């Protein structure tokens, strides 16, 4: 699920943390178990949290023959369906209509004077969301997954056990997929903080607020500010620094700030006082294992890539590992594409320019040593066919210099980077491009100057960052290609689809 401000800080419920601790103790000293617990209902797989990740994992496990149960204290579907992606996108679509209505006159439609009625969309949106709740319910019933209503706490027991409304449930595998909730600043930090609302409250609003202040610079803040402003609320966005989306590519970050201001959102910069707490995530390894055997966590509660499809994919991979004996089944967290439904929307996948900027690598080609510099550079240009837009292709340049130019005594350390399958495939044609090597320090600027031989074949596109109309639907296919390790040459060789915005990405010179 994309929406809620776990990015700012996830407050994994403290009670849950306590529960995990209790369980750890129990496991550490099983002999100390005193009172025999009342008999617990037992399952093969117990999932705590009926959101995207939990439901996907439970259903996949059930398909693989496991007896599964889902514990959920609220509505099924979790953040995504109830207070996240789904209602958010509905509101975004609503806001996009206001932009269309502006365009109508230019396209020859007359008398487009319009008023906006918040009640209509609120009602339809709620109806749609509850339809989805029912679908989720039916899906679980069809898959013979038991739904346990209530909130789970871990309990002592010989096997991982949880307690819901006084009843005990046990399973050899328990998945924590409880997601997160928006953070509210402490009353002691900001007096009156409780008078504000979070994204959850936004979806309960019965009327369009006439005047709104959104505090935060993350994508949820940007999305909500854009929606409110487009629908006619006088909107201010209060941010701590000078730009929104500061962990995005710098071009996107400044462009989005500009777009917000152009759209009439007042951006209040350098304001003081909002602190976020970034603790509370459950720590998991790449296989979603927590520190306790038999207990796993997926999704927002882990604090990594807080997106619905990530939770779904991780949940399914886990089910395959647990119930199909696929030992190495895990989610690859690299190159996860994501879209911010700002106005216009932002699409981003892969590295930004800021990270991994320059890495020097020594390549060993059978007998001789070659030095390769990997630079992350960006190629960008604005495009404007269907409205203002900008995008950046971030590329890794693989350049190779002759062995004589190699630094004298590098301290070899294990290489942290490996070639993608696509580049390995290209290696057949470019034998100098070998992945074996060692990382060295970056201090020798003289060497960098000597590196010249660069062709588009050596340009691996490692990131795409864009903002513009249509970027939301454009990104997915490009993400497949970036994941495959597509090079700039591959982009050049792809024929454009005319006239679209996406063709700009393959026609860059």
């Amino acid at each position: 699920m994309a929406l809620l401000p776990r990015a700012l800080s996830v407050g994994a419920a403290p009670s849950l943390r306590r529960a995990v601790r209790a369980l750890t103790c129990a496991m550490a000293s099983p002999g100390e178990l005193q009172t025999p617990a009342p008999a617990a209902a037992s399952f093969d797989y117990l999932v705590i949290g009926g959101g995207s990740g939990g439901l996907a994992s439970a259903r996949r496990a059930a398909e693989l023959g496991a007896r599964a149960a889902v514990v959920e204290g609220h509505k099924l579907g979790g953040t995504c369906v109830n207070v996240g992606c789904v209602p958010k996108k509905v509101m975004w679509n609503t806001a996009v209509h206001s932009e269309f209505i502006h365009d109508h006159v230019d396209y020859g439609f007359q008398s487009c004077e319009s008023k906006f009625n918040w009640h209509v969309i609120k009602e339809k949106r709620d109806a749609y969301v509850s339809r989805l709740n029912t679908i989720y319910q039916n899906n679980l019933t069809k898959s013979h997954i038991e739904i346990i209503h209530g909130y789970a706490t871990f309990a002592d027991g010989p096997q991982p056990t949880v307690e819901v409304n006084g009843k005990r449930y046990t399973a050899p595998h328990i998945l924590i997929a409880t997601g997160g909730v928006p953070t509210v600043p402490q009353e002691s930090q900001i007096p009156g903080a409780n008078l504000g609302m979070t994204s959850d409250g936004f979806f309960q609003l019965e009327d369009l607020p006439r005047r709104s202040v959104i505090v935060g610079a993350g994508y949820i803040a940007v999305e909500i500010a854009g929606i409110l402003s487009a629908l006619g609320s006088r909107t201010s966005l209060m941010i701590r620094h000078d730009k929104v989306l500061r962990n995005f590519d710098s071009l996107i970050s400044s462009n989005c700030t500009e777009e917000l201001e152009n759209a009439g959102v007042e951006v209040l910069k350098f304001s003081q006082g909002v602190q976020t707490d970034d603790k509370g995530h459950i720590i998991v390894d790449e296989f979603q294992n927590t520190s306790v055997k038999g207990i796993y966590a997926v999704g927002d509660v882990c604090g990594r890539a807080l997106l619905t499809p990530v939770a779904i994919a991780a949940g399914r991979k886990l089910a395959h590992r647990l119930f199909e004996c696929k030992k190495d089944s895990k989610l690859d967290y690299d190159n996860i594409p994501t879209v911010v439904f700002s106005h216009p929307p932002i699409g981003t996948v892969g590295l930004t320019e800021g990270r991994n900027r320059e890495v020097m690598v020594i390549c060993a080609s059978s007998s001789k040593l070659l030095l390769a510099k990997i630079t992350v550079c960006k190629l960008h240009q604005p495009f404007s066919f269907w409205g203002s837009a900008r995008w950046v292709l971030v590329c890794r340049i693989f350049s190779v210099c002759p062995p004589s130019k190699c630094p004298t005594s590098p301290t070899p350390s294990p290489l942290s980077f490996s070639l993608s399958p696509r580049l390995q495939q290209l290696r057949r044609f470019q034998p100098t491009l070998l992945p074996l090597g060692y990382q060295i320090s970056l201090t020798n600027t003289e060497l960098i100057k000597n590196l010249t031989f660069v062709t588009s074949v050596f340009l691996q596109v490692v990131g795409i960052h864009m903002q513009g109309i249509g970027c939301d639907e454009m990104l997915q296919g490009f993400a497949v290609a970036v994941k495959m390790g597509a090079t700039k040459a591959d982009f050049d060789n792809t024929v454009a689809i005319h006239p679209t915005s996406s063709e700009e990405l393959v026609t860059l010179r």
Partner: protein
Amino acid sequence: MAAMVVALRGPVGRFRSRTRAWTRGTRGAANAAGGQQSFDLLVIGGGSGGLACAKEAAQLGRKVAVADYVEPSPQGTKWGLGGTCVNVGCIPKKLMHQAALLGGMVKDAHHYGWEVAQPIQHNWKKMAEAVQNHVKSLNWGHRVQLQDRKVKYFNVKASFVDEHTVCGVDKGGKTTLLSADHIVIATGGRPKYPTQIKGALEYGITSDDIFWLKESPGKTLVVGASYVALECAGFLTGIGLDTTVMMRSIPLRGFDQQMSSLVTEHMESHGTRFLKGCIPSVIKKLPTGQLQVIWKDHASGKEDTGTFDTVLWAIGRVPETKNLNLEKAGVNINPENQKIVVDAQDATSVPHIFAIGDVAEGRPELTPTAIKAGKLLAHRLFGKSSALMDYSNVPTTVFTPLEYGCVGLSEEEAVALHGQEHVEVYHAYYKPLEFTVTDRDASQCYIKMVCLREPPQLVLGLHFLGPNAGEVTQGFALGIKCGASYAQVMQTVGIHPTCSEEVVKLHITKRSGLEPTVTGC
């Protein structure tokens, strides 16, 4: 990829520099004799391909000229520099498609809480003016670009005198002789008129005219089943005009047929009328100024008649080769379709004369392929490159009301090539989130990915029917060009909630017979 091609092609590269030196010498002599202007490269046709080739060659430091001339349509429509795409094709088409989509949006708006005063009227004149102004700005842009790159532009109708010389005639009848070492023919094509049908030429219009009409076409009959026909009928219906499509046989020949029928099914359910298996026989002008069309229904053998304000022919296109005097230069055409016969290097039967774009035989009639071919040709001629245009996996999108984007093989082609037992088709009917609140019917929102059956299941083709298909398809085309397999597509995390994520979620095979309707996130 380019580098691979270079490596493979290197040894067979032609001795172009030597040939060039030789022709230069002879041309110098001719120059002294006559007063003609001579160039390294002369491009006939200022459309997408021709302009791209000319500009690229100029950037490589060559002396380049472009000869472009628009013969008015039978209805008298004419336009500026830039060719079909800019003036009477992609650009105005997509803008009018956008106008139609906006019309749908107005209808939807009240579901989203917008109280829009109904009914909303559409004003053709206003739209056409806005579209035409944009086109004119593009015409101007092309002129400026040629000037910036020092490409000499001649607004003349060109025909060959000999294999190195072309005679250009301007509007006033003044002639200019142009000669060049290399000549590129990029004259494109024009809509076909069914001249055997009485009244067709006098009363019918084509896509050359529709975008330049000053008044609304009113009740329109579109004849044909090509993408041009369906796109025009789609936007005409969308802006509220009574529109009928008359087609002889199947829609979108050459495209995947399952997708094609979904496209027409969607149009039918959104108000476009279809007369299938019908052929018009006579067009008459009534005293009211309306057109009476008589047609024959081939299934029943019966004749029928209807009255329309406009009849639009979209039954195909013919290459512009008739007026070029190609025989003077010795350039061969295919007598069946009048297209210029070319080899893989885009060379015609005369080695220094080339043809690119719609006028060349066997090439897709698409702007981006013509542009790419033009640029690559310029590099082969003047840039020490030998890279050829790769025509495999060319993506395209049909901008019907529900857009259809595709790349690679259709299901039929894949089965014909690899056999039914080696092809796996993943498919899904999905409902765009945008449609849910407005209760829009999504029965035709459908995706299918055609793969090899053997793991890792190489993707052979992707077909996407739904909103924003053009934007969705481009990136996947890149992936497929890189050799994506089904497994690799599935490894990519989805973007939620979008329509494009449905592609990376495809998991139901046709072979399984399971219900392919997507439910939930």
